[in-house]
């Protein structure tokens, strides 16, 4: 129980840190974001009133009439109300709406890809560590090559080979634009088709880390006393592999899953750019190009909260999986 409380506390602090970062960054950096934003807004045909200026100032800073702490309070208040401002690049849609439409795409893509990469990587790593010297072990240096490959470059190569070259998969977009979005057959099929290349990119690039980590842990675990005892007990090899070796060796991977999720999210932002995938990453990039500061902040917030939530979930699962944490507290 102690463990759960500690974890919740930590993530509360991390969340607060992220929110505060979000608040501070526009205020720390040179330039006056509010002016730029309002100029853009006018271009798009929006109206600029004193209220608009005030609202954006709370979000981005620049209004020196109120002390910082009051601005901070106003910012947090708006957040909890769910008011993240109005997007400039997707005017007149509010930021929350833009994010809401694009979030599911990213969550599904990144979620499925990460789970696939982790699953395959851990499985291969288990076998590579179990029998060092097999062909699997010689696979390990090859995965270092893949891990060093920039996500987006790999994406380009895959598009070149599989889309342009062989015509197997579409190169752009999240779905065929002539179709109606919704829970219907053709749309879902098209969505899956369009998701294959981006997912493949993420899985290939992320696989190596899992494989290597698991392999090294297996090598360590196999020299532990309890594995020796299991062998002395005459248990079948498969059983030992699964319940004594892998079960213990996988623990650091579970603990590290959360951290690598952060990296995968980072990588997916760029991947989405290459594929023009309608996820939250491409929204972020569009926002940067258009000086849509409100959307930038909003997206960063959502990404961070999502990653923190995933981390918390994984940490809680770890608490279930390793009985020693419950005792330590």
């Amino acid at each position, binding site marked *: 129980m102690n463990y759960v409380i500690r974890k919740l506390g930590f993530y509360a602090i991390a969340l607060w840190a992220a929110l505060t970062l979000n608040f501070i960054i526009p205020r720390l950096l040179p330039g006056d974001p509010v002016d730029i934003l309002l100029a853009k807004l006018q271009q798009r045909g929006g109206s600029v009133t004193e209220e608009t200026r005030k609202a954006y100032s709370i979000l981005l800073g620049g209004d020196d009439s109120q002390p910082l702490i009051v601005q901070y309070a106003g910012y947090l208040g708006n957040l909890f109300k769910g008011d993240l401002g109005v997007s400039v690049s997707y005017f007149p849609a509010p930021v929350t709406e833009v994010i809401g439409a694009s979030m599911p795409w990213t969550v599904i893509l990144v979620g499925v890809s990460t789970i696939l990469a982790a699953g395959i990587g851990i499985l291969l790593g288990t076998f590579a560590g179990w029998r060092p010297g097999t062909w699997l072990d010689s696979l390990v240096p090859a995965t270092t090559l893949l891990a060093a490959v920039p996500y987006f470059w790999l994406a380009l190569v895959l598009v070149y080979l599989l889309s342009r070259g062989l015509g197997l998969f579409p190169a752009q977009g999240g779905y065929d634009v002539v179709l109606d979005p919704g829970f219907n057959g053709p749309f879902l099929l098209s969505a899956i088709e369009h998701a294959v290349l981006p997912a493949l990119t993420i899985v290939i690039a992320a696989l190596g880390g899992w494989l290597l980590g698991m392999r090294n842990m297996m090598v360590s675990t196999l020299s*532990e*006393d*309890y594995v*020796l*005892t*299991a*062998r*002395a*007990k*005459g*248990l*079948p090899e498969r*059983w030992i592999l699964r*319940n*004594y070796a892998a*079960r*213990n060796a996988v*623990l650091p991977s579970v603990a590290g899953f959360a951290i690598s999720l952060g990296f995968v999210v980072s990588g997916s932002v760029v991947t989405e750019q290459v594929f023009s995938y309608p996820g939250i990453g491409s929204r972020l990039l569009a926002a940067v190009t258009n000086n849509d500061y409100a959307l930038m902040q909003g997206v960063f917030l959502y990404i961070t909260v999502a990653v923190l939530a995933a981390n918390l979930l994984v940490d809680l699962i770890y608490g279930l*999986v*390793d*009985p*020693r944490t419950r*005792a330590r507290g």
Partner: protein
Amino acid sequence: MSTISPERLEAGATGKPPVLSVRGLSVVYESQNPVTAVKNASFELGRGEILGLAGESGCGKTTLAYAINRLHQPPARISSGQVLFHDSSGQELDLLGLGESQLRDFRWQKLSMVFQGAMNALNPVRSIGAQLDDTLRAHAPGMTRAARRERSAQVLTRVGVDPGRLRSFPHELSGGMRQRVMIAMAMLLEPQVMIMDEPTTALDVVVQRDILREIVRLREELDFAVIFITHDLPLLLEISDRIAVMLRGEIVELDQAATLYRQAAHPYTRKLLASFPSLRGDRGAFVRGGTADDPQEQS
């Protein structure tokens, strides 16, 4: 270099038929500087006998124990020798020649082990009950779940551990309890031989006494043979029938406990005996000054 006559090697010297025969076993470590860890070890273990295996750190006693059960790992390699198991059914098994699945069947059912320092010998992520259970499942596939549970509870009670502990994890038990669990686990299939490698070294003296008493009591009940490995020679003098002394990979002496105590043949054995300080009487040969003196000068 040993002073053992062939007759003393035989378990017949104690009047018991042999259950394990080790003949000329040698184990080599193929490292940068290849080293012979066990040199031409030979002895016989009588049915129901307690054979003590004594020697200082690095003399090869653990290597010998592992090699008998073929638990040694690379870079260790058995370079020569024979290990024969004389089953109570009359069958004779050549342990070094057994195939993989035959070896798995043999292990724990006929010969079980209790390892040094049960801190790490139990799987930290599975409950005690699960670890007892999978042994039964592997060797007695006909048993029902209820029967397995009952048997596990039975062995725990026998060693003085509350059967409610079946659901506990290893880190929730004290050192002494974990060692008892290890002994219980070793008894699960009622083996004919139990090899115990320093089973009480990591425990405090009071717990040590308790565990030793359990071992002796259980052996009287179930009549299994024990190879008891330790550096603590006085301990062996108390509980063993015969004692083998190892030095640098060789068995240099093997005799009845009482005879060894009174008339040790090999100079190393004599030095070993003399080096343990007694609670009263002579100071013994325990070196305080940092140099290896002659024992006479001390007293």
